[in-house]
């Protein structure tokens, strides 16, 4: 079975490019060029040089001794939190800014939830001297204030999305509308493995450096690779080079919000059904009329009612397993990792740690957790929720 995208942009029944005709030229241009550009020696050289000297790759694979002791297994942390800007998101924005440059684009737009992707986009735009506009839900602007300030300091314009749930889904709608209105000079840097083909494959390729490094850094294969999933880019990056190694168990962790049995949740794969959102066919949270259900998660980066089509396919074809973790469990895990390892994780990432307690681990098991980002941006939420003042 293939877990890679086919020529029409589908992973099994999921994926495709369900775009309004207004976006057809933009998407066609990307579909026709993204692979050739990625494979060109100039792109490869600049991409790897920037990942090394600017982002700080390879990121370490750290054996977390006290966590290992607590859970009775060997737990390794892939330190994406040490990337420049503090999360894995920058791997993708480096790739896409080089692509945008090759396509001659002058103006960059992006959507952001937690603000990590927005910061990573503002960063590469500053690096390349390109105009940058980031759409962000009004609710997320409030709960991720430090990242809003970072984007502004980097010279980006942050535009609030005020429709719907005022979170990531609505920011994505606004970014797509901007692209429709500016079809010629603008490149849209989508921040996860979502959206129309070729985005899911393109973003997965740029993020695949994560699993490429894990493979080199480990002696043999891990038993588990665990990552949180919002749209699914850090998970896809961590899974990518293990997809055909069937003995490696792949676990994606989504946000259950207040619980999968409540209506305040973002557990898309646990609760969702097939549908089309943001121009790709995947699994999504919707009511019986096909209207999108507004999600909830304490973590802005996981607060999304859809998921990348590749994950929908990995789930239905049983290649990966998806679990859901509540707001409260994530907070508890964030405290635990901070106190056991001296690493404050992003709230998104904390979800991934929280499943350790639910797995049936053996002392010989080698578990890799993708530590997708650091928790600085979440200090406001941590202070409030954990009474740190």
């Amino acid at each position, binding site marked *: 079975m293939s877990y890679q995208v086919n020529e*029409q942009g589908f992973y099994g029944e999921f994926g*495709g*490019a*369900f*775009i*309004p*005709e*207004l976006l*057809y*030229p933009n998407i066609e241009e990307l579909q026709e060029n993204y692979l050739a550009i990625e494979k060109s020696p100039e792109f490869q050289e600049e991409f790897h040089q920037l990942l090394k000297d600017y982002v700080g790759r390879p990121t370490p694979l750290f054996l977390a001794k006290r966590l290992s002791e607590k859970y009775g297994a060997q737990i390794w942390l892939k330190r994406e939190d040490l990337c420049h800007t503090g999360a894995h998101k920058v791997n993708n924005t480096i790739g896409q800014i080089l692509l945008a440059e090759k396509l001659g684009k002058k103006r960059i737009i992006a959507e952001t939830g937690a603000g990590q992707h927005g910061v990573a986009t503002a960063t590469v735009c500053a690096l390349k001297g390109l105009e940058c506009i980031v759409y962000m839900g009004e609710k997320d602007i409030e709960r991720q204030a430090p990242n809003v300030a970072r984007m502004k300091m980097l010279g980006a314009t942050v535009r609030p999305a005020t*429709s*719907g749930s005022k979170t990531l*889904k609505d920011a994505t*709608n606004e970014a*797509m*509308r901007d692209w*429709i*209105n500016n*079809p*010629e000079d603008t490149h849209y840097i989508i921040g996860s493995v979502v959206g129309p083909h070729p985005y899911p494959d393109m973003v997965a390729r740029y993020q695949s450096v994560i699993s490429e490094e894990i493979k080199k850094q480990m002696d043999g294969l891990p038993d588990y690779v665990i990552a949180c999933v919002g749209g699914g880019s850090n998970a896809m990056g961590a899974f990518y080079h293990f997809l055909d190694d069937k003995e490696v168990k792949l676990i994606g962790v989504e946000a259950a919000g207040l619980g999968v049995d409540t209506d305040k949740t973002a557990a898309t794969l646990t609760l969702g059904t097939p*549908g*089309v*959102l*943001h*121009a790709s066919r995947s699994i*999504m949270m*919707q009511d*019986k*009329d*096909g*209207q*999108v259900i507004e999600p909830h998660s304490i973590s802005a980066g996981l607060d999304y009612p859809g998921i990348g089509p590749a994950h929908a396919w990995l789930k239905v074809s049983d290649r990966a397993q998806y679990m859901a973790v509540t707001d409260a469990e994530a907070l508890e895990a964030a405290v635990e990792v901070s106190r056991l390892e001296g690493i404050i994780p992003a709230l998104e990432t904390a979800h991934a740690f929280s499943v350790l307690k639910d797995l049936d681990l053996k002392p010989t098991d080698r578990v890799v957790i993708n530590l997708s980002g650091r928790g600085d941006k979440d200090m406001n939420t941590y202070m409030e929720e954990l009474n740190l003042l």
Partner: protein
Amino acid sequence: MKNKLTELLKNKPQNLLNIFYTAGYPQLEDTTTLLTALENAKVDLVEIGIPFSDPLADGPTIQESSKIALENGMSIEKLFSQLENNTPKVPVLLMGYLNPVMQYGLEAFCKRCQEVGVDGLIVPDLPMYIYQTEFKEVFEKYNISNIFLVTPQTSEKRIREIDDNSNGFIYAVSSASTTGSKTDFSAAADYLGKLKDMELKTPILTGFNIKNQQNFNDACKYVNGAIIGSEFIRQITDVEDISKAATNFVASIK
């Protein structure tokens, strides 16, 4: 059952006025109030929007009307039953995003469209190749026309391909934009002139930025007619008598 749209378009008439509004807006039962008013005002076609939670090709006016319509309890089933009790006399198109249609079920949807007198569909996020491979057969089985969009960025080759695959009209977006966003129509003249010169077999209606009689007349110099959406919605928002507002607006255009 005859398709009123293909009947209307058979001889490629000129100066067609197509009015768009959102089903269930401003009040749930206004769908048919407006339909009747527009029929009496002698518009040539009516396009009714099925509200969706995430209308990504629409600007603020239609977004807002969709949101209110959903809050009013609008749904596809409700729309069908409204039309069923008020069989449309003019050609009626539904404009709706793909996801609600898919959840309803494609075959069931097209069947109901035919039963209640809907002649054509505009599904902005249904790409041509998916239409051809997965949808065309069902549309044809129930005699439903599929309307494609073209924009100033659409290549000539693709316009010709769309022309070959169309069985209603082609919806020419007058400038690349979400609905209702630009104020100036004049920039579109060039583009519509080019479309006219291509001598397509399918009639063309243009839409998105038409607001008044001047725009309408300008558009009709080049193509078969025009679609007014956002401006019409503004005209029926916050008014006492929507029928009267609709009638007056149509009279001001044509």
